[in-house]
């Protein structure tokens, strides 16, 4: 659990234990969509700095809402804590976990600066999270 997670609102007291499919739907939006969007919406001719900045926002400021700022890692950990962990063992969960790990692995390079980020690989890794969420969700259906 990192600091970003602490800025989140607690679950609404009146909400019932969440349905795993509902959790995945939220994850698809919060993590799947917003992890991919900043880089996907870059113009084709974006500079290295623009790509790096978009990747940083995608990973570290994935959701900036009135209820707080959450990074991709915090969103994933919140998903596990809220009930997503119970899906461990279901077909498709391992693929999702691996996809998330690959995406989060870019954090170091994004934070450290240095060489340019390979945009195609970045897009592929970020998009894979969304695809894995969708695949797991379809299996639950």
């Amino acid at each position, binding site marked *: 659990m990192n600091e970003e997670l602490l800025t989140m609102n607690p679950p609404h007291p009146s909400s019932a234990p969440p349905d795993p499919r509902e959790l995945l739907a939220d994850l698809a939006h919060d993590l799947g969509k917003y992890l991919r969007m900043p880089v996907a919406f870059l113009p084709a001719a974006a500079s290295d700095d623009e790509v790096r900045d978009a990747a940083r926002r995608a990973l570290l400021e994935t959701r*900036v809402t009135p209820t707080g700022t959450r990074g991709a890692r915090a969103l994933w950990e919140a998903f596990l804590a809220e009930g997503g962990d119970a899906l461990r063992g279901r077909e498709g969960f391992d693929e999702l976990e691996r996809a998330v790990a690959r995406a989060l692995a870019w954090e170091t390079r994004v934070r450290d600066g240095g060489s340019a980020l390979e945009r195609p690989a970045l897009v592929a890794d970020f998009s894979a999270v969304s695809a894995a969420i969708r695949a797991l969700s379809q299996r639950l259906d």
Partner: protein
Amino acid sequence: MVSMHAPMTGAVAELPPLQVPRMSKRKPNILVVDDGLTYARVVADHLPELRLVTPDGQPCLRDGPSALAWLDRHVDEVDLVLLDMHFDVPDEKLLPLPNEPSLRRQKRFQGVAILREIRHRHPALPVVLLTAEQDLSLVDVDGQLAAQSMTYVLDGEDLDTLRIRINAALQEASQGLEEDDLLWGGHRAMAAIRRRLEVLSRGSMPVIIEGETGTGKSFLAERYLHRKSGRKGAFVTLDLSAVPTELVASHLFGALRGSFTGAVADRKGVFELAHHGTLFIDEIQNVPIEVQKQLLVVLQERKVRPIGAAREIDVDVKVVAASNQPLALAVAEGRFRQDLYMRLGPATRVVIPPLRERLGDLPFFARRIVTRAAEDPENAPLKAEVARAAGLTSEAPMHVLLGRSDTPPPSHALALVLPEPAWKVLSAHRWPGNMRELHSVMHHLVAFTLVAAADALRSGMPLKNPRLQVDVGLVGELLSASQALNAPRAAAPASPAAPAPAPVHSQVRGVTPLPAVDTDARDTFLVKVRPLGSLNAVAVDVERQYFFALYKRFGGDFARMAEVLLGDPAKERAIRLRFNQMGLKVRELRGR
């Protein structure tokens, strides 16, 4: 029945246009409604052709209530709204989604709640909803939101897709939901029809328009297709539901005196009358099969030979063929020649959807019709009288308040208040008479309400409230004539490739068939001849009885009476005038 109109020389501008975006050289203003900053950043950083609106210095509005409140004050400053779907906001900032009891889902589909309100308050404001279409379908069960032409669903996540969606929405919005006296509304099908008619107006190729009675086929043909065509000749209508079979050929092609029994004078055919103009043939499926071949030849050769004439006449006519049933069905049943059908251009036919399939536009239509009806010559003096009594100016416009949750009208306007039950009844009605029925009902609501208010004033009752409440019972009364027809009916098919089963159709243009009434007897009544001082007085008395009986039979619908008596529902004013001349007062008849 032939009617002929001089070429239109100018637009009939009754009202200022809605919020047509100023699409000149300045950048379109984009308001982002999103709980996050992502889309605002995309617009600001990567879409330089757009200008990001920054309410109170903020890059976006973060929840529904804030967005709606701001838009109510500043909608004129916005050309398009980019609206997110998922809003992770405090509970008190959520707009309700009645069918979503779970808070989680209310947040996830909050964009739909906001979109509904925007559609309600600002129907012409284009909105690009940032979600996948399959997500929208989860909450937009009846598809009405998705079908609104001002609503675009972003189904991809890349810059070019977003750019294309925004551009399409802005282009469409620049056309507006109405044009002169044509009410297009926001349904996507109508936008497509509009584009298609604009293309089809060019040249002289024939056009097929299909649609149920009252959908406005002739209106569209004259006010849009003919007007856009730039043709210099007249717009001529031939209504084949009102022409005896044996006379169809002479109406179409003309006839010389003595060419057949009953041809007592030379008669010009409609092709000749419409030379260099547009010929609207209504209920074309009624052309007798033996005349269809001649019609085909005229269309091919562009020459017409009046009956009994030795020579042909060159004609340059754009033919618009209308039918209230799929012509393909008449072809399949052997009632209509396939070669003639093909000549009319079935591939580009236009099918106007019935009103019940675009009820999302009902509030917009109701608002516009009420405002216009109040300015009708017969209503305007009453409206001015009532407005003055309420402390407004004589020119105060009339707005309508639709149900409990509608936005209050501006303080300078007279309000026609439709109580919640009345609005519910109107919203649930299936409108078998389509736009004609809606026009009729709304006109009557305005007229009856104004008359009641004026009567009250003249009786010495003080009337200071600018809100005039509609009699709920009157709404039911006005709808009762068509409620027996409310059973769902098959619509004309949307695609030429897949004709739907034939709907039940009136055999009379524009007249909604009455239940359990013999069509042949619908204009037949018993009247009592009473001895009076003169033949003229007897004739007037008979006419009064006839008009009164007709009024009762058609539930006070003057358009339908005009249809029966004059063959044209648009001539209802002539019927009202005749009523006045005969001393028949509508407000008195209503109570009888």
